[in-house]
């Protein structure tokens, strides 16, 4: 018993030590507690090493113990998994619902007209240039920041910007590219200023053939073909054009988007 108490004290000391060290090193509280739990698990393991021997069980007693043990394992694994952060399936359900509603409304593969998308993009580009000229005339001296509309209202079939943004979400481009401060910035280049460097057609070419352009500083990723070469197969021409057009509107020069180098 004395040995067990000693081990508990050691475990508590190690756990507390890890907790305070992690705090001092700037780990968020969730990690501090995780380290404490690791120390607790270690303590349980070392307590188990000295547990007194158990006589072999047999008969109904053994059967009852096995049932009880299964119950503990079932609840332990089910509940343990439930304690971890859970992905919200509503996110993906919404995407599938949108695709299905598009399919019901007509052509499931190309519900948006590519020509219309390009025309709309040109109009938006003109607007951007006009705004830039006006800002410069005001003499602000600040980098031009143009953000796409955040909430343009209900989507219509012919709204290329909304379609482009939907494609960004549906294809989960944010997993690798940071945009508007959201998403994984390290796996692919941040795209807030991509419209300054590439035209709609060039962005489209990059999406359809990832090897066509290489972002400066991402040579290794380009060499290994990290960007999936599948979008031309899983997206319609209209969808790719809409996505390219939407990305083209991002011209935030305050963000250090790497310069794309033409490779093909």
């Amino acid at each position: 018993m004395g040995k067990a108490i000693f081990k508990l004290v050691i475990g508590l000391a190690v756990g507390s030590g890890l907790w305070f060290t992690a705090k001092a090193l700037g780990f968020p509280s969730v990690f501090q507690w995780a380290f404490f739990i690791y120390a607790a698990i270690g303590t349980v393991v070392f307590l188990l090493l000295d547990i007194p021997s158990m006589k072999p069980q047999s008969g109904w007693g053994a059967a009852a113990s096995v049932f009880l043990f299964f119950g503990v394992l079932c609840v332990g694994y089910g509940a343990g998994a439930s304690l971890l952060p859970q992905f919200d399936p509503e996110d993906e359900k919404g995407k599938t619902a949108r695709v299905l509603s598009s399919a019901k409304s007509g052509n499931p593969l190309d519900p948006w007209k590519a020509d219309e998308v390009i025309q709309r993009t040109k109009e938006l580009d003109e607007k951007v240039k006009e705004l830039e000229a006006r800002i410069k005339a005001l003499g602000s001296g600040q980098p031009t920041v143009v953000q796409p509309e955040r909430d343009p209202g209900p989507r219509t079939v012919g709204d290329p910007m909304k379609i482009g943004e939907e494609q960004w979400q549906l294809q989960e481009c944010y997993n690798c590219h940071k945009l508007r401060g959201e998403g994984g910035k390290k796996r692919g280049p941040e795209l807030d200023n991509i419209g300054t460097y590439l035209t709609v057609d060039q962005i489209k070419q990059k999406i359809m053939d990832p090897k066509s352009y290489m972002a400066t500083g991402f040579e290794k990723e380009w060499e290994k073909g990290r960007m999936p070469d599948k979008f031309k197969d899983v997206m319609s021409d209209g969808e790719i054009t809409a996505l390219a057009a939407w990305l083209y509107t991002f011209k935030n020069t305050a963000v250090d988007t790497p310069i794309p180098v033409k490779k093909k």
Partner: protein
Amino acid sequence: MNIPTRNLVTLLAFLALCLAGVSSVYAQTPGASSLEFPYTGNRAAVWIVAQFHTLLGAFVLGAPIFVVIAEWLGYRKQDLRYDRMAKEVTKITVILFSLTALTGGLFIFVLLATYPQFTTWLINQFYLVFAVIYPLMFILGAIALYAYFYTWDAWKGEKKGRHIALGVLLNLLCLATMFAINGPTSFMNTPVKEEGISPMEALAVATLWDKIANASWMPLNIHRIDGNIAFGGFVVGLIAAYMHMSAKSQEERAYYDWMGFTANLIAVGAMLLQPFTGLLLAYEMCDYDFSFCQYMMVEQLSMFFEMQGAIVGLMFLGCNYYVWLSLRRIQGVEQVRMTVLAPVVMVLFPPVAIWGLTTYWIPEPMSLAILIPLALAPFLLGRFIPMTVSVQTVMKVGFLMVVVSDAIWLTPNGFAATGARMVEDLKLPEAWDFIGKMPTKLGAILSLVFATTINYALYGKAIRQGTIVWGKIDGISQFVLIFLAFTSIWAMGLMGAVRSLLRKYFHTYNLIPDFTAESFTPTLSYSAWLITGITVVFFIVVSVAVFVALRPLELKGREPEGSPVPAGTK
């Protein structure tokens, strides 16, 4: 109905199910809407049947490998215990083989009912595999299994070699069956593709072999062979635990103690390779399409891997604890000592492995040049260092390093379900983000494997130097065997779910989209409870099979060839 007739009826039922299933593909109206499976929904229905079939399949494919190894060892060492164990496991395999066949047929029907268009398409792509090769291999495998089982007593003595050869043939047929069905399975994740042309165009010009030998086929084969051996070993350990608990005499307890020990040894040997064959499979899939990697490790499925780290860590703790408990019944274990280098290297291994792999990431060979000498140091240099430590000390350091290594493996980049929505409060600090990276994880896995290998090497040494008293093992050890079997089945279910979920909006990646209402990524919690349920059903089935196959032996009294082994026999 006697056993051969019952097996024949089952086999014929399976054939009828397969043929009816495959031929109904042609009878199907294109565009027919799928059914909504009651209570569970379509995806969960397929999930349950597929996983149950896979678990049974894993056992009936893994057990023959285990059985033939055991039979050969028994023949070589002239130890009748191996032969008895092999025969008992084969008897259970025969029962479960019938169930595998039936659930296989059921699986085809559920697929056809729930996803008719896709199933039709897939069967058309692999018509030769589904209609000819797979059923043929299954039938030949069944014939070989029954022949192997029913010739056991007839082919002994001088004919034993012939019987072992039949067992090898059975294994070759089982492997061919698995390789054949792994073709369509892996194809769904990584179908043929060619640069410069669309996947549909690539598929149009692909031969059947091109479709089978896709990017993830061989890694999946290797992972499943290794996994099936481990799985078979753990399930045999479970059988031994059941029988140990129901043993009426000390000699029976001695035998089932030995059986549990042997099964666990083979299972752990195979399990040590599992993380690496799993990594190879993941590597090939990421190489095929990098978005798989994101989805698995960083995004929607990242917490599935967190759970995997937790349960694999528990398995390593479990198998080391079994060794610890086993040591207690070895007489003279107090005199067994090991070089001090063993615990020193165990402590050094995680930081050196993490540094080496971070600096020289795969495929740079320098990391191996650092790690191999380090891992071999206790074995090669140990004899030149006079300082030694006791078994208990080495094992306690081993336990500490297993906990530390698993803690490193478990610590994620951040405690968020998806990386894209990670916030600073849940993320590792910038200076420590290397903990969440792959080189660190691989270093931790290597450390787990190294600590376990040292413990088992030590155990071997203890057995050689001391006297093992069979039947005197701590009662807790039987629960450890049950725990290991349960956890390995659960882990298999979890990783199988990950492999299937990876396709996300596709039945066949980039080829056949899946925009049905259930094509979303389920929560880890939902998946875990479903996997737990399937594991319980599998346990019930195995328990019934053990009871049906082995209890009559106990009641009647066993035949003389599996002679009792007195407690205390080494």
